[in-house]
């Protein structure tokens, strides 16, 4: 298991510093780097309480609760936070794959990315939640703000082990229903499910007006199939073994793979979903920085 410290690679964090994960739809005009809504106090519905954290505006301390419980709670309003980020992490067994030339498995890479993004969102005083899944939802950490929440995120990441089959499509449907608060849904997955099922799930997010970013995590070996010798491939998710003449099958494999990626890409484009193909041998800081920079330009 990846050590928690390594989730926060200083180089990655350094490159993310100064960048913002910006919402596309939720708060119009939130483009100046402000993380408080300009419509604060206007038609704002109470959403929930949360424990007071240093730095919270004292105006929103619920004194009634303080009187009843002797504890400081801040009132949370739905639009108080401009950005709620849902990190959706695929923890199926297939994510454990690590190709011969890759420094990390896909899952470890996803964990690092999740940690970095959580840090980034929390750093900009927004809320971040995290969900892990395989064929079903495995763990849920509700979105919250504050630096203390980062520990919760990391703890969950640390506890996440690869297991089970992938069923991304149904899980996405379920999450789309669950995520009541509109926000940014960041998918970290290899998306190795039927493309129509995956796209249907993504479409569901779209209908729920979530801003979806799909980081499609792929190992270089999966994308290029660099095998020449007769090889017996052992399924990580299903207990099957397929012996093949790798050299003979390579072309067909790459055709299938490319067709799948193209289909996925086209579907994402159709539903205005940010699709980012990420090979796990690429440096994470570079991937995130490039993506965030590009996103900023797109949203301008």
């Amino acid at each position, binding site marked *: 298991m990846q050590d928690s410290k390594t989730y926060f690679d200083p180089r990655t964090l350094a490159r993310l510093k100064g960048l913002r994960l910006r919402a596309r739809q939720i708060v119009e005009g939130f483009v100046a780097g402000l993380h408080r809504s300009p419509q604060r106090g206007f038609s704002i519905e109470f959403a929930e309480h949360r424990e007071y954290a240093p730095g919270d505006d004292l105006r929103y301390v619920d004194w009634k609760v303080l009187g009843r419980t002797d504890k400081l709670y801040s009132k949370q309003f739905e639009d108080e936070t401009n950005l709620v980020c849902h990190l959706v992490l695929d923890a199926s067994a297939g994510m454990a794959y690590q190709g011969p030339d890759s420094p990390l498995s896909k899952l470890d890479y996803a964990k690092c990315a999740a940690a970095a993004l959580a840090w980034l969102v929390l750093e900009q005083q927004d809320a971040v939640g995290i969900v892990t899944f395989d064929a079903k939802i495995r763990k849920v950490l509700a979105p919250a703000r504050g630096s203390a929440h980062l520990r919760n995120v990391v703890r969950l990441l640390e506890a996440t082990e690869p297991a089970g089959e992938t069923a991304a499509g149904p899980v996405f449907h379920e999450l789309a229903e669950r995520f009541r608060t509109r926000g940014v849904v960041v998918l970290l997955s290899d998306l190795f499910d039927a493309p129509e099922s995956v796209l249907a799930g993504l479409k569901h997010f779209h209908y729920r007006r979530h801003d979806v970013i799909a980081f499609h995590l792929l190992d270089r070996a999966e994308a290029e199939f660099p095998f020449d010798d007769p090889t017996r491939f052992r399924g990580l998710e299903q207990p099957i073994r397929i012996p093949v003449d790798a050299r003979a099958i390579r072309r*067909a494999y790459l055709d299938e793979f490319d067709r799948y990626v193209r289909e996925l890409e086209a579907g994402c484009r159709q539903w205005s979903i940010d699709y980012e193909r990420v090979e796990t041998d690429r440096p994470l800081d570079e991937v995130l920085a490039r993506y965030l920079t590009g996103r900023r330009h797109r949203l301008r």
Partner: protein
Amino acid sequence: MEQVEGLWGWWELASGPMLGWSAAALVPLAVHLLRRRTYRETPWAAMRFLEAAMRRRAGRMRIEQWLLLILRMALLALLAVALADPRSRGSGSTDHRATGPKTHWVFVIDVSYSMAYHASERSLLEESKSLARDRIQAAADGDGFTLVAMGAPAQTRIAEPAFDRADVLRELERLEPLHGGASLDDALDAARRIATRAKRRYPRLTRTRICVFSDLQRTTWSDLDSPGVRRRIDAWAREIPIELVEVGEPAWRNAAVTRLELAHSLVTPDQDARFLAEIRRLSTDHPRRARAIALVDGQVVHEADVDLTSGTETLAFSHRFLKPGDYAVELRIAGADPLDIDNHRWTSVRVRDSLRVLCVEGAPGAARYVAIAIEPSGVEPARLRCETAGPSGLVDRDLGPYACIFLCNVPTFQSEEVESLRRYADSGGGLVFFLGDQVQTDRYNELLHDGERGRALLPARLGSVEADRVHSLDPLEYRHPLVKPFRSHERAGLLTVPIQRHFRLDPTGTTGSRVALGLDNGEPILVEKDYGRGRVFLFGSSVSPAPAGTATADLWTEFPTWPSFPPIVHELLALVLRSADAHREVQVGGVFESESIGEPGAPRLRIIDPKGDAAWLDVDGGRSNASRGPAWRHGPVTWSGVYRVAPDGKPDAGIPYCANVDTAEGVLDRVDPAAMPSIFARESTDEGHGEVSGGGGGGGGEPRSAARGLLAAVLAIVLVECLLASLFGAGRS
């Protein structure tokens, strides 16, 4: 290879057993079915794409694999069929070359040296080869050919019927005239054995014909004069027709060098060596003249025109060798006749600084006269060096350096001494026994004559001592080479030698003994024999000086003081030397044999034959002895000329050994064809050689072998297989 007929309606196989190789076509299939691939296992997440790819590719891959497999199997099967050489039996045509009975042609071609005679631009052998070639090309499709070179002995060049004409023609072209004679009996026996075996193994060859190509030279064909040979050939001919193809013409001319020898045996650098050569016209009238050229180690040293009007001319020439060593001397005649092989003769000459001789005395001074005769005082430089030793002088002495050993009045010998003397004589040394009063007759007979059955060292058994009267010597018409120089020199003192006392010598029971000198009563007094490569002489009286005051009646003989004694001793030495070097000259077909060359014990010798081909042979350690070292043999030699023998690894040219032809083969008289036995169906080149009766020759189209087409198909398949394998491979990459 057996031919298989009727395998398919229109096809037959020239080499049926080769079809067995078609089983190899199953090898790729077996490999495909039995091969267990070794897979490297790897975990994998993207199984869905792999499965989809497999579903898409599996069918096509299987088809590709089977296509390649079928191509590879077809390739091997077609190759096997091509090797079996299938031939069409004709598509309904009347081509009898293809459909007639198949014949086994046994060509027997005379390669004796008379076949090198150039009657025209071509030699008789080349003419024979041309006639044989015509027969091969005109033979029926499917006929088989074998080839025997009629030499002495006969050499089988193609033992099993060959069906590829190109191969047969190639082997035919390689025939060349040998430098020896030919054995008709041997050649026909070889041909019969080949024919009999082929009949058994190749039932498809229903007919056999033996064709003998020869110039009918009398020496070769005189085999037929032997009733045994005649009877045998008669019997064969009843089974197999023998066709005689005669080449050449009755008229011929030839001269040959029939003799070349040194006039004396000891050659030293300080004197001229004199050679005698004989050039003989072997034909009746021509040639009348010839140019004789003498060469020493390839350098011309003497030239002379020779008049052959009388038939035989003796040529004498001299040459002074400047330093000791071994030389090859050749005499050749140029421009004389169309048969060159016998126009050369070679001899090997050993030039020595001096010669060492050992005299063993049974009593003090017993060899004094012999020593004086060998090395007269005051003659400088001494060419002969005589060493004298006492009765035990043979013990532990290396006898190898001595050219001759004189044993004078030695009483008896130890068995080791006798063994040493035997080995010495065996390896080419000369022994001369002079008897006397000390000699123990019984011991001599026991040790030197009777001891080893069939290998008596002495040329005669010793009997009693006779002193009945004074005898004189009888030269026995000077027949023996030892006394031949005294012919016409009756006053040289040989006939007046008084022999007062002598041992009776009985050579009758001794194999190979020759009497050189006798007594006036008919008894032998000087007897000799060959022993191994050496020579042994036995003089029945004493040559030791008599003690002072000995009465004349008690003397043995005054021969050592007679003027004829020194020449006799020197002639003895000459004969011994000639024997010692005789092994350096053989007739073609003979064997060179000698002690080691150079340092004794040299393990390998290099022999370069007259054609320049080198051969190496191990020295036979089994024949080693204390005196002369190991012996070696090389032969029978095939070519006339000089063979250079040297220790392996030594850069020097080596010692020349010479092989000369038997000039009897150069007498090109023919047997009368009309007198030939009826067993030979004769064909002369004058009568043409187009159609050979029953030979299956004749018209008809070219045979239609499918082998070429099949091989083309094999090549095409190889090409297609390579392309497909590359294409399939490229599709995968």
